[in-house]
């Protein structure tokens, strides 16, 4: 089966000579459709760079990135831009919603930019908002929504249409722990229900623990990862009824 996202030997270097920084070094990462992977690491470890390279916002200095099996390096600039609009959704800590557009207009925007008629795009956007219980707030502007509601809109925008890859950078950073958990619950549901591959960058172990797999990054290198997601029944069985 083709991986939704694959990084092979990816390196990213900023600067040169004495100021050279190796932000990513020989990174291999594969994420399957429906799988949620968390990237954990300290500040400056390269985890956000990994996300921007995976999302084709930056080109790697070495190695290859494949999205849906297609090598990104073989694409023209326009093809990459289309790939980003059509196949990749982004969620950021500060939501990045456009203040002058309503919730439904924000969600419909990537579809309209991809050439879809406004009426149809808004109908699809409304369906996406309904999946996150936000359809009744669809006509509200971002400043009329709470932090948790804004992030729901941002997630709906990230997975609207046929997007197969969701990339999130500290998506719960601006929220309290209960709202943060609610957002991660939605990200999980989006991955499993819509068969989307998700990559979440976070330094928060509680939020990372919602992922199927956690990859640890240090000094630009992948140094470790958790075992496949365990069965919770094993935990109950070990604690119950002696």
């Amino acid at each position, binding site marked *: 089966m083709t991986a939704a996202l694959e990084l092979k030997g990816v390196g990213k270097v900023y600067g040169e000579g004495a100021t050279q920084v190796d932000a990513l070094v020989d990174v291999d990462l594969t994420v399957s459709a429906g799988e949620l992977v968390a990237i954990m690491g300290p500040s400056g470890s390269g985890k956000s760079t990994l996300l921007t390279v995976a999302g084709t916002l930056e080109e790697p200095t070495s190695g290859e990135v494949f999205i849906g099996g297609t090598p990104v390096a073989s694409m023209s600039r326009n093809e990459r831009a289309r790939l980003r609009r059509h196949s990749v959704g982004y969620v950021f800590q500060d939501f990045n919603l456009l203040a002058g557009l309503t919730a439904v207009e924000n969600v419909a925007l990537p579809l309209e930019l991809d050439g879809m008629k406004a009426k149809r795009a808004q109908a699809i956007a409304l369906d996406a908002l309904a999946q996150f219980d936000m359809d009744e707030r669809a006509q509200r502007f971002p400043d009329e929504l709470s932090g948790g509601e804004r992030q729901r809109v941002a997630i709906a925008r990230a997975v609207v249409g046929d997007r197969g890859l969701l990339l999130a950078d500290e998506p719960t950073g601006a929220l309290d722990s209960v709202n943060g958990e609610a957002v991660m619950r939605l990200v999980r549901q989006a991955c499993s229900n819509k068969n989307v591959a998700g990559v979440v960058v976070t330094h928060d*172990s509680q939020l990372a623990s*919602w*992922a199927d797999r956690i990859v*640890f990054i*240090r000094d630009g290198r992948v140094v470790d990862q958790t075992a496949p997601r365990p069965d919770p029944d*094993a935990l109950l069985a070990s604690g119950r009824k002696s």
Partner: protein
Amino acid sequence: MILSVTIKHALLALLSDQPKYGLQLRQEFEEKTGEIWPLNVGQVYTTLQRLERDGLVASDGADRDGRENVFRLTDAGRTELLEWLSTPDPSSAPPRDELTIKVLIALSVPGVDVRDIVQRHRRHLVEAMQQFTRLKEDASDDDVALSLVVDAELFRLEAKVRWLDAAETRILRSGPPHNRAAVAGRTSSEEKEQEEVVR
């Protein structure tokens, strides 16, 4: 394993609304703790006997007739329960935490990569957090008891992970690398030790 002192007060709390049988107390205890903490019948009856001896509960003595005893809370038991609920945890002496001790000792062992040791413990703790999070994910929205118990475990494990993060940063900033020599492949005894840390 839940401490006997907690079982004692949990049973007093369960008897605070009405008298109950021993088996009923065990069932309610497990329901109210999200079935995370096991409690066997022997523990329940041993604790009830001690509570009765101390005058904190009273029974109707039915077991002499071959029927099961019904236990009720006494006034002294209610006073004990209310005092316990409002008494803060003793926190004057820091606990001797095995994880802390292992990292401290690793700093002084030649040939040991402390960052590698830290990462092995971090991974193990995060894997345990994944298990607890999945329990919460699968729980129904109205199962508050399970969510509370799982949250408590997650915050406890998260505190250890955050301590490891801080320890790694502090060790890196403390000067020359500490014993960075590569560690040989992990052994089954090392894995067993890590499991014990989480328990």
